[in-house]
């Protein structure tokens, strides 16, 4: 009797937690909507190559005959200057944007969380050193810093990702540290110390799990911001390179044709707008459910 019930029971509370979270998420209509769109975006990104009407238009293949056609039944979003289907490229662009944004934010979290937690939980000299380094990074506007790093590393999507991660982590460090400082004073941390729990275990077992919530909220909002930054970098020629169907790059190229082919800039721009918006809304919704006050239903 010892084995099986143990394992089943240890999964159960997690499932209950997830179900509760989903229930809470669903309570706010705007959050429900944004969650729906985010799921749709992720699904789109996963199956993009298989659902686009003109998979050959994603990369280099050109179709000069149909160049700069307005939206029609054949080409939903019209075509670009090389006659490629903008609809196919925007759909495929979802994949690129989400992937790069997730990796960039993930990298930033990977650097930011441990540094912030250690700084906040340890205090003293360690805290000073980590936070002063963070301050140096924070004293640059993040976009400018990303541009500088991307320019230094050379223009490519991978370097743009790195540049964003490097300019983004200090925000998480500061956020986590602020939380950790207050969590450090909580009684359960004192209780763990009284038991004789080693410091590393206190930081990563007790402090980090309790200050992660605002970071998750921030990160989900930042995904929108990072998508925008990648688009900006690509727009400036520092991110994705042609013929990659990246939204920012598409907007950038469309500038030259804007006056007589409005659809070329509008649709990629709209994709950026919608994605950034839903991630922000989702972040807001997450903030609500992760706030212990509203959780105490």
């Amino acid at each position: 009797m010892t084995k099986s019930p143990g394992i089943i029971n240890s999964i159960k509370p997690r499932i209950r937690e997830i179900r509760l979270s989903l229930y809470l998420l669903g309570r706010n209509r705007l959050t429900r909507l944004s969650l729906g769109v985010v799921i749709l975006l992720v699904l789109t990104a996963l199956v993009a190559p298989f659902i686009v009407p003109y998979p050959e238009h994603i990369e280099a293949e050109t179709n000069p005959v149909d160049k700069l056609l307005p939206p029609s039944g054949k080409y939903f979003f019209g075509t670009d200057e090389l006659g490629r289907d903008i609809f196919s490229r925007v759909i495929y662009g979802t994949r690129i944007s989400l992937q790069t944004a997730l990796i960039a934010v993930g990298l930033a979290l990977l650097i930011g969380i441990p540094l912030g937690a250690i700084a906040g939980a340890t205090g003293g000299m360690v805290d000073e050193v980590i936070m002063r380094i963070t301050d140096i990074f924070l004293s640059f506007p993040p976009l400018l810093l990303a541009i500088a790093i991307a320019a230094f590393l050379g223009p490519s999507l991978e370097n743009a990702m790195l540049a964003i991660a490097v300019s983004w982590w200090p925000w998480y460090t500061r956020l986590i540290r602020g939380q950790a400082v207050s969590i450090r004073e909580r009684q359960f941390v004192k209780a763990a110390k009284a038991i004789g729990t080693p410091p590393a275990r206190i930081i990563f077992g007790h402090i980090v799990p309790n200050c992660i919530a605002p970071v998750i909220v921030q990160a989900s909002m930042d995904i929108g911001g990072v998508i925008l930054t990648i688009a900006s970098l690509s727009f400036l020629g520092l991110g994705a390179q042609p013929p990659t169907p990246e939204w920012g790059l598409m907007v950038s190229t469309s500038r030259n044709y804007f006056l007589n082919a409005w659809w070329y800039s509008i649709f990629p721009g709209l994709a950026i707008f919608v994605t950034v918006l839903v991630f922000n809304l989702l972040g807001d919704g997450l903030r609500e459910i992760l706030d212990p006050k509203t959780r105490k239903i």
Partner: protein
Amino acid sequence: MADSILKVKDLKKYFPVRGGFFSKPVAWVKAVDGVTFEMEQGEVLGLVGESGCGKTTLVNVLLNLEEPTSGEVYFDGLDLFDMDKKSLRKIRKNLQIVFQDPFWSLNPRLLVRDIVGEPIKVHANCSREQLVKKVGDLLEMVGLPRSGVFKYPHEFSGGERQRIAIARALALSPKLVVLDEPTSSIDVLSQAQILELLKNLKQSLGLTYILISHDLSVVNYMADRIAVMYLGKMVEYGPADDVFDRTAHPYTKALFAAIPTLDTEGIDSIATIEGSVPSAINPPSGCRFHTRCPMAKEICRQREPVMVDLGGGHRAACHFIGKDAKGAC
């Protein structure tokens, strides 16, 4: 004595108040200022005083969470402040604490299995199944269902959470448990149940308690010996019955009079002490209680009273103890 499990000698803990350009200490908060007492195995010591009297600091020092300024503490005959880290960790097993507020003393993100099991994981190797079984046993011991192992703290009420905190404190079968206001933030009904549980556990496991509270009625219910603290000093100390029947210090008397009971008829029969506890940075001269004491005289402002032995281990620090008896007639 061989039976003495805890011996505290002239313990002091001062906190610096930093100020000025080089953040030099400009003043000292005398949180614990010369406390001496001794405990025998299996005894319950009730530590009573208002907030700010130094109870919590005393506990922090006893549990080695803070360094003392001076003084000695012997636990089981071993000097607690003269010890390497390894033996200290071993001693930690025998010295546990239950905190005041069960809403903050349990990590909200962990399952009860990991909260109660943490001391076991830290101090002993143990498989997952063994841990679950052990935590289940501990929960049963404190009167909670075994199924609680896989729940989160927020699924329990205040009283139940305090039971979880007790289970965690007992996980390593300690000798001495410090109960830091274990019932002050839960309702009366849960308080009665928790006190009952603590009493039973003490008997069945042969535990020794230091019970901290500002409520003399709680202490009355459990303690064998009572120590009353005011502004870092002990003002009265002795066997519980003695302290209740022959209350010597005016502060202790005031604490008794403040408790509303069912026999209280109307608000006017509750006594209050004027004012609040003075700051411990510049404690009042002479007797520290003189600013609020109803019977303060000139001598209280000038001279600090010494502990007077009243017989049977009952001691109190007040200028009027001897005179009270004589001067009464």
